[in-house]
């Protein structure tokens, strides 16, 4: 049997490759970056919502399953530059630096993932202009290293605000969808900071809190145990407060029914998820249909959530839409099974 190709080594891809390998199928795991773990690794995610487990404890075992696995060929810093459909499977060209190699594969799992929304595009929030306006993936790194300090002067902040739905649910930037994890991750960050530094006040500006399903517990806990505060309203702009040392968040507290201009030491933007670069490239390469949002579209999102509709091409993880890590891991398993069935036929 020709090997099964898994594209992308984030949670979904790692999970898919681990499962095809466990089924005994030779597997090629291709990753654009030099490391495994995808976005969580790239941005040094700290604890993962909702169980607040360190990301290394989640990704570590997944990575261990593929590294040194005799059935898995790891191809780091590699992309697929060509794909040609054969009668059964595909002939793909793998590019590593200047080196190219052609390989026949029996089935393909696209686990090409998402990119974080570029917060520069939401220019009203001053990201890139004011150093103390952070993207929440940057704060992840800070929390991970326990160095939550203002980039402008290196001092610890007294009061932090999170702005939810940055680049999500927003027609102005063309992203009408919900990123599904922004609420939970922001609340989790606030909890982490309050755990270690109860002297820092944490405020979350929200429209709706979407800690769906069992994640609601995190939302409740954040208020009841960690005193995180929630203000219902979307921030309209961030400017410098008088004196220029603090940030001024202008919004409406819709429950107070008045506009508010509140100074903060740090403002964190919960940037949403967009179809990843790799996802767009894979869509073009294999001819997978994409929806109006730019994510890959499974044939039936309920019955065939991992089927692309193309023979031998299967989908997993955030390539088909914003997704949390547990869901991505599950889809990786599903796609692995479907790919294995196809390859064995």
């Amino acid at each position, binding site marked *: 049997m020709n090997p099964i190709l898994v594209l992308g080594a984030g949670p979904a891809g790692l999970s898919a490759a681990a499962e095809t390998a466990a089924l005994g199928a030779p597997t090629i795991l291709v990753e654009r970056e030099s490391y495994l773990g995808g976005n969580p690794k790239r941005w040094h995610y700290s604890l993962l919502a909702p169980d607040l487990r360190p990301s290394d404890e989640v990704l570590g075992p997944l990575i261990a399953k593929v590294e040194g696995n005799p059935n898995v060929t790891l191809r780091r810093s590699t992309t697929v530059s060509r794909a040609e459909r054969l009668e059964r499977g595909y002939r793909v060209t793998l590019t590593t630096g200047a080196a190219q190699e052609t390989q026949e594969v029996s089935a393909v799992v696209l686990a090409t993932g998402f990119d974080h929304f570029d917060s520069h595009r939401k220019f009203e929030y001053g990201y890139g202009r004011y150093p103390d306006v952070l993207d929440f993936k940057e704060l992840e790194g800070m929390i991970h290293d326990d160095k939550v300090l203002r980039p402008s002067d290196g001092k610890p902040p007294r009061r932090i605000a999170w702005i939810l739905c940055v680049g999500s*649910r927003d027609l*102005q930037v063309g992203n009408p969808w919900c990123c599904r994890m922004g609420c939970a991750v922001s609340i989790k960050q606030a909890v982490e900071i309050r755990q270690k530094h109860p002297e820092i006040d944490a405020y979350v500006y929200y429209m709706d809190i979407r800690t769906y399903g069992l994640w609601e517990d995190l939302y409740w806990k954040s208020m009841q145990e960690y005193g995180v505060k929630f203000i219902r309203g*979307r921030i*309209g702009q961030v400017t410098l407060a008088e004196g220029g040392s603090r940030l001024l968040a202008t919004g*409406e*507290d*819709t429950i107070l029914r008045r*506009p508010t201009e509140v100074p903060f030491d740090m403002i964190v933007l919960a940037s949403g998820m967009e179809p990843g670069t790799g996802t767009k490239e894979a869509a073009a390469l294999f001819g997978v249909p994409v929806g109006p949002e730019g994510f890959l579209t499974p044939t039936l999102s309920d019955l065939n959530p991992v089927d692309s509709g193309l023979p031998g091409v299967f989908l997993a993880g955030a390539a088909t839409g914003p997704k949390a890590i547990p869901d991505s891991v599950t889809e990786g398993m599903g796609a692995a099974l479907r790919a294995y069935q196809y390859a064995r036929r």
Partner: protein
Amino acid sequence: MPIVEKSLVTVDRTEHLEIEGIDVSGDWNSFLRSRVQVDLDVRVLDWVRSQPQGDTISRCWQCGTCTAGCCLHTDYGLTDFNPRYFIYLAQVGYEEELRKYSSTIWRCVSCNKCVERCPKGVKVEEVVHTIGSYLEATGGAPESPADRFDRAYTENLLRRGILDEADLFRTYERGEGRTMPAREMLRMGLTLLRSGRLRTGPLAHRTRGWRRFGAVLRAKLEEDERRRRESAGAVARAGGGPR
């Protein structure tokens, strides 16, 4: 517990009352007016949605981005002006509450920051004006000094096609029951008249061809007014309304 919100208290005051030799004068029958909203009126939303400038109202999800940037708060201190809240009242149908703002709602200066920022593509400025039109067309709005000034201004302008400031000031102030400090006004007025800066009465400016143009303008204004009333009347007749 003391009642803090005095405006909600109505009082029967008895100045001198003595029963069987005991003085019982004072406040009687004090009670709170109900704060409970007892009905919802879908006519507002139906009408606003039916207007070409108002149909984006149904996109609004009440995030408050519009009010956050509204310059009526920041630059003009008009704290009663809250576009997000107006839209909410109209969406849900709190008609009575909305009517309290029937004068304030016209204060929008159309800077359009709200439209620029709205994440849902609500044309906030147009929608708010449309809600105002509804309130105006369906009447019952308490007239404010600003409304009366607007009317005096329009009538003044329609007479000659150019404003006669002295006459506008005189008419409006008189209508409000105020008198002007005659001596000071006279001194300023005479100076202005002499310099030719102010022309009023027989000396007032005229607009060439105003008789014809003014007639067209008047007819157009009357037609607009008629249409607005018809449209609002049609909505009222078509049912909907409180149910």
